[in-house]
């Protein structure tokens, strides 16, 4: 994969609301089918530190999963008992815990927005702002975003979208600031928190949409791990990567079967093929406990 330097410069990833990173995954690592030859180390990126954009990958926002859970599980949920208490903010004094918990609190803010828990949303916004300042992200909300929020009071979908914007605009600020290692920790924190919340809300029921959505996280986790690998020379990232690989090992035990044909409704095209991931009650319990362990290691760090 040779890339002219000029092109490498021109291909700087510039998304304002996404995670866009060159993939540093090893195509020969393990037997994971996703590590095909489409996942190559971008030599230009490695040598120059420049994101070439030739191969990038995206990660669905934690808010997307929370919105899905609200759709399938009902809007009435107001449980905040499992969120990371805003007061814990005072315990985070090192750069690693600040970055991880910036991601966690951003996800908690998204949760409160999604489920219209206004009082808590206010609390979490304040800690997100504070931690954002401390890790070098002046949280990316401008006047127009505040206006959008004001205009959409009472509209959970819009509030959730605005929370997403905050989350990903922060990502962009970290990318632009060449703080890839911090970004990696933020992503890991936010992602694990979203899994933790969902596994607290969704009780096991075979073939339920919520349970299937958790099983499907295998793919998103793979993207996140690939991203963290790029910064594994950083000791904090390396330690988190070890924990995420432990979780991946559990997801890798899930059985995959060929997906059956599905007919689209109203003429919508269906992309056929692929596999369906199956998860048993015991596997769900194991994965949930693993998620809890990792998440608590993030929130209890000082």
């Amino acid at each position, binding site marked *: 994969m040779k890339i002219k330097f000029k092109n490498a410069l021109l291909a700087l990833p510039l998304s304002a609301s996404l995670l866009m990173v060159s993939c540093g995954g090893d195509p020969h690592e393990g037997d994971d089918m996703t590590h095909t030859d489409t996942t190559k180390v971008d030599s230009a990126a490695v040598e120059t530190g420049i994101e070439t954009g*030739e191969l990038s990958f995206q990660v669905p926002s934690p808010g997307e999963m929370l919105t899905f859970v609200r759709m399938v599980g009902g809007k009435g949920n107001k449980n905040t008992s499992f969120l990371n208490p805003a007061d814990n903010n005072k315990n985070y004094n090192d750069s690693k815990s600040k970055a991880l918990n910036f991601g966690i609190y951003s996800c908690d803010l998204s949760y409160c927005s999604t489920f219209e828990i206004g009082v808590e949303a206010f609390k979490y916004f304040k800690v997100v702002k504070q931690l954002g300042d401390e890790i070098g992200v002046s949280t990316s909300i401008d006047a127009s975003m505040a206006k959008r929020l004001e205009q959409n009071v009472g509209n959970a979908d819009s509030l959730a979208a605005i929370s997403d914007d905050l989350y990903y605009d922060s990502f962009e600020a970290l990318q632009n600031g060449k703080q890839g290692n911090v970004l990696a920790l933020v992503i890991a924190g936010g992602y694990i928190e979203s899994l933790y919340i969902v596994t607290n809300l969704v009780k096991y029921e075979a073939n339920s949409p919520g349970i299937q959505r958790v099983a499907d996280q295998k793919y998103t986790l793979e993207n996140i791990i690939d991203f963290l690998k790029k910064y594994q020379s950083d000791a904090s990232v390396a330690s988190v990567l070890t924990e995420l690989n432990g979780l991946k090992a559990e997801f890798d035990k899930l059985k995959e079967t060929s997906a059956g044909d599905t007919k689209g409704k109203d003429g919508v095209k269906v992309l056929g093929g692929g596999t369906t991931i199956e998860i048993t009650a015991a596997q769900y319990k194991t994965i949930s406990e693993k998620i809890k362990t990792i998440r608590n290691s993030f929130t209890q760090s000082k």
Partner: protein
Amino acid sequence: MKKILTILAVTIASVLSTDLAAQTSVCGQFHRKNCAMESDKDDDREFLYNAQSKSGLFAQGSTSKMRCVIYKGMDYRMTVCCETAGSQINFKIFDAKTNEELYDNAKDENSTQFEFQSASTRQLIIELTVPTGEAASKKGKPTDAACVGLLIEHKVSDKTGFSKY
């Protein structure tokens, strides 16, 4: 509830002094401003913005790939746009595991929008080939580069499909 959220909104406006313009890059939210089609505005289905959307500044004539995750049980609408005038963006979708080509807009009258469901949750490779052509000159952006946007939207599939999830 409304009062609290209103206070939140006002607080946000007052406590933040972030110069977002200084943080955003040349193409910024290009996809949000330029990819939505006129026909979408009359579409009463509630597609939601998907955070895997992106904008990027790329050398004209170059090809770029991104990997994303889509879920079974959801409808997706992908729309591409580019600032170069009078050119077609080539837009392909591959299965990330098998490299099987699932869609090519060259075989779909060069459509810039594709709406679909997937039989399974999967990783997709989206490949965009950026056309050559005159691009707007802008501070910090070479004239031989072009902003390209990919807008991804999603919604839960209608009940009949969802029940088979």
